[in-house]
């Protein structure tokens, strides 16, 4: 799939408490999570972000808690893809499970407001503002099967239909 949008840039070690603070975890509705997405990293994120924009970060994005509320909050904000130098593992698997694209790439040359065009099939990330191209790490085969199926639940339904269980 091809996505086009602008960059919201964050640093290293953006933890799940910054993505969605625990004080809001008494309500797992998408609307509540969207409203407070990234609040402790950038208080006004939820008012600035538009559908199709990207979150771009440094190392270890999504470290900390296993809360799936974090990728759900990001997806509910209209962000289709998160690009970071690296991801913490639970956030990584949660994102694939709920059908949020995650790309590992060198994000050093991407800045706030840059316009990117991302091809999630080839992993090619075009920076239209800077006129540069970065290639993301390939997604493991099983993971792309998951995302292509529409996430783990859709994959599970398919499994039941095929009568494997």
């Amino acid at each position, binding site marked *: 799939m091809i996505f086009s949008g602008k960059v919201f840039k964050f640093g290293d070690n953006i933890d799940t*408490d910054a993505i969605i603070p625990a004080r809001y*975890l008494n309500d797992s509705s998408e609307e509540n999570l969207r409203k407070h997405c990234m609040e402790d990293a950038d208080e006004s994120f939820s008012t600035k972000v538009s559908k199709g924009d990207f979150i771009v970060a440094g190392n270890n994005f999504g470290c900390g808690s*296993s809360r799936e509320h974090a990728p759900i909050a990001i997806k509910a904000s209209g962000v289709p893809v998160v690009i970071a130098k690296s991801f913490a593992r*639970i956030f990584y698997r949660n994102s694939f499970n*709920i059908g949020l694209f995650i790309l590992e790439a060198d994000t050093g040359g991407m800045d706030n407001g840059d316009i990117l065009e991302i091809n999630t099939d080839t992993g090619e990330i075009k920076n239209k503002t800077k006129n540069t191209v970065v290639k993301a790490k390939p997604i493991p085969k099983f993971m792309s099967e998951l995302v292509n199926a529409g996430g783990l639940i859709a994959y*599970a339904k398919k499994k039941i239909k095929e009568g494997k269980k």
Partner: protein
Amino acid sequence: MGRPLTITEKIIQNHTDLSTVLPGDIVNARVDIALGNDITAPIAIKEFEAIGIGEVFDRKKIALVPDHFVPNKDILSARQAKVLREFAKKHDIENYFECGEAGVEHALLPEKGIVLPGDLVVGADSHTCTYGALGAFATGVGSTDLAYAFAFGELWLKVPETIKVIFNGKPKKWVSGKDLVLYLIGKIGVEGANYMALEFTGSTFKHLGMSDRFTISNMAIEAGAKSGIFEPDEITEDYVKGRAKRDYIFYKSDEGAEYAKILNFDTESINPQVAFPHLPENSVDINEASAKNIKIDQSVIGSCTNGRIEDLRIAAEILKGKKIAKYSRLIVIPATPDIYRMAEKEGLIDIFMDAGAVVSTPTCGPCLGGYMGILADGEKSISSTNRNFKGRMGDVTSEVYLANPAVCAASAILGKIAGPDEVA
């Protein structure tokens, strides 16, 4: 003889139909226990319903522990706990714990013998890795993962590479599992073991008990690790026997098993550690931390990291006959009702209350900034918990310093970050 395996590879392999596994393989592994709490399980239950399979895979292999916001702090959190209760009722879930019998999940499940050596455990809570202390493969997953495990009793896992971490030598007085793991995270960083298993070994662990192992495995995630495991031994056996109601298996790593890295540490040179805001990797020696003269507003002793009876005994030893500093708070949270009861019988609760502490019923509460000890703007807390991220315990300008229960107790008395020797 096939390829020599680490304990982690062996447990994973034995939960598949495969004849061997290699790091990097993605496998479907059978799950012995699938765990959720009052924050993560509501989403899992919703996703489970979406699968449409109707029945859970095994009502005895699911654990539901409301512990984060329980007893409920508000209407919304009460609704979430209600979702767990209704699901537990409907599916007759054996290991559902109502508040009064519930405690902090990662203290409760080992205590009740629900998780055992050789198990493969997935939990929708990042600190599920705690059970590695028993010689189980245990890892944190998301709510959708948990829904899948509820339905099928299996889950996809990538077989991790392992870093072997060796601590040799006898720990100094006041040095506990907490200090070793903070020291390790300080050395390898919060991403130092991302996607990998940590395997802990060395002569140090003959001097420390199960509670220290739980603390160390618990914080494996703070180095990014998938799991943190100990080979079970006689200390494990002493803990498990009398609790287990089913068979369990002691796995060991094979001679010649492959490790991504082997790290050696001299425990005798390690002092109590304090991790400064806002990452667990910012650990420094207590002497250095104390010299900075950091005033604290609050001290918390509890959580899945350090809320066990051994932790409370250490804190009580320091607090006995002392008062906490004026205008500061000390919050003590026994992690389970059994621990609470033991603490009461041993006179520890009196010691805490005489010192000026508030003793809470078991809850994760303040650790994640949920309730029961939230910080105002600019306030500082020392805490025996596991995370000191920005805003973790309250206002985004507040600060959390991580330490062992002895340091937390001493700091409460002096109203500043201090080592136990400073209040002796």
